[in-house]
């Protein structure tokens, strides 16, 4: 199968490969997929004042899965949490020209974004429950 130039570019020069401290308060982590299925994505966001200031990924999967998650980190940087929720897998399909058999890669990337956002929000919510955290955030 021939890959689009954009997929090849992300594969050769993946953006934002790496990891943040998983347990840091300002980090949200999403791990989706399974090794048995041939793809696992780990996507992480770093948040300041409800804005994603940095994003990183690591992906086990085909070139399209790598490109989808690499692209996702690019898009996430600078977005507010609210705007990040709006990223759709179809946007990724469109941007990378993914063929029908590779649509699941984009779905996985969207799931990873949602999971990372969810993880951050869960942490932030727990923080609010603690009185001292509540005062600092108000």
């Amino acid at each position, binding site marked *: 199968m021939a*890959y689009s130039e954009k997929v*090849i570019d992300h*594969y050769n020069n*993946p953006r934002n*490969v790496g*990891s943040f401290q998983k347990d840091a308060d300002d980090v949200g982590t999403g*791990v*989706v*997929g*399974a*090794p*048995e*299925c*041939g*793809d*696992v*994505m*780990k996507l992480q966001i770093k948040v300041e004042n409800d804005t994603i200031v940095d994003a990183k*990924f*690591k*992906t*086990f*999967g*085909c*070139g399209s*899965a*790598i490109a989808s998650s690499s692209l996702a980190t690019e898009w996430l940087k600078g977005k507010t949490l609210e705007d990040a929720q709006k990223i759709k897998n179809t946007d990724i399909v469109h941007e990378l020209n993914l063929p029908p*058999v590779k649509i*699941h890669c984009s779905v*996985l990337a969207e*799931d990873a974004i949602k999971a990372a956002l969810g993880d951050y929000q869960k942490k932030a919510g727990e923080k609010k429950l603690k009185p001292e955290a509540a005062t600092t955030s108000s």
Partner: protein
Amino acid sequence: MKLPIYLDNHSTTPCDPRVLETMLPYFTEKFGNAASRNHSFGWEAEEAVEVARKQIAHLIHADAKELIFTSGATESDNLALQGVVEMYREKGNHIITGSTEHRAVIDTAKYLEKKGIKVTFLPVDKAGMVSPDDVRNAITDQTILISIMMANNEIGTINPVAAIGKVAKEKGVLFHCDATQGVGKIPVNVQEMGIDLMSFTAHKIYGPKGVGALYVRRKAPRVRLEAMMYGGGHERGMRSGTLPVPLIVGFGKACELCEQEMSTESVRMAKMRDRLQEGIMNRMDEVYLNGHPTERLPNNLNISFAYVEGEALLMGVKEIALSSGSACTSATLEPSYVLRALGVGSDLAHSSIRFGLGRFNTDEEVEYTIDRMIKAVTHLREMSPLYEMAKEGVDLKSVQWAAH
């Protein structure tokens, strides 16, 4: 060294220039129909076919009269299974085959299952080998055919064919062997191996695509087949259709060359393969050999690069033609059923790469491939969350993954 490098010789091989040269006149001036009995064009074509038949038969120690030309090994497998079942159905309704057979055998067996035939799919051991004892134990008074491959197309494991042939003989059951990957690469002797029917094809042994053969034993026992193709009664009535004379001539020449060169070629092939294996495995951790360590085709190497997905890896070495057992590279979107049958986990099946060396590969290409594989795997492991987790000491098997 020229790029791209072709290392997918289990899939197909280039036509040897000596083969092509032998074929050419039969497209133009010697174009006759081998079945035309009344003029010199036909006689010339028939003679060429008979020469080729002898060359092919000689390679497998058969009689030239025992070969039925087909379009390839897939057709030969279909004809063997369906033809025998139809002919011998009154004798019994059970056939035995293996779980790592080529799809041409497995899917034909499944088709026969739908038509009411009982099929036993034998398991294989960790190295991909069928046990002759398992074959023996699976035989019932209803068994009419055993179909076990000579060498596997993915992992190169060579089955104990002669021992299986012996069991078949003792029990009086016909034995078909899909020898597509074996013929021309390792010595094949249908007498000593007790084979009654055998499928093979030209394009895996530096001959043209579009022609194959089914060996059908004529004596002790005389095997009969119901045809699948009806018409002019060619090939002893077992396969009608005008013979593709140029292809058959090429098939013959290809077999002749294999016979002449096998002893030196297989040594050279094994040396390159061993170098490839050492070169990769000595320089990288968590790389696993799939298949049998020694009972393997001299040109085959199948390894899994843990934490890296096969299709992504192929993308990283796209100037080298290889194949992978990853789901993403298969039409079914399932990882290799052959590797699964060996007990290889889905994760490692997704990470497998098959290297198939051939007559025209060089040592220089092997060295280049080693370096490129290491670079590509390293690149992908750096971005693999699984590799990171494994390095942190996380047991990946204990993680609750959300399958999708």
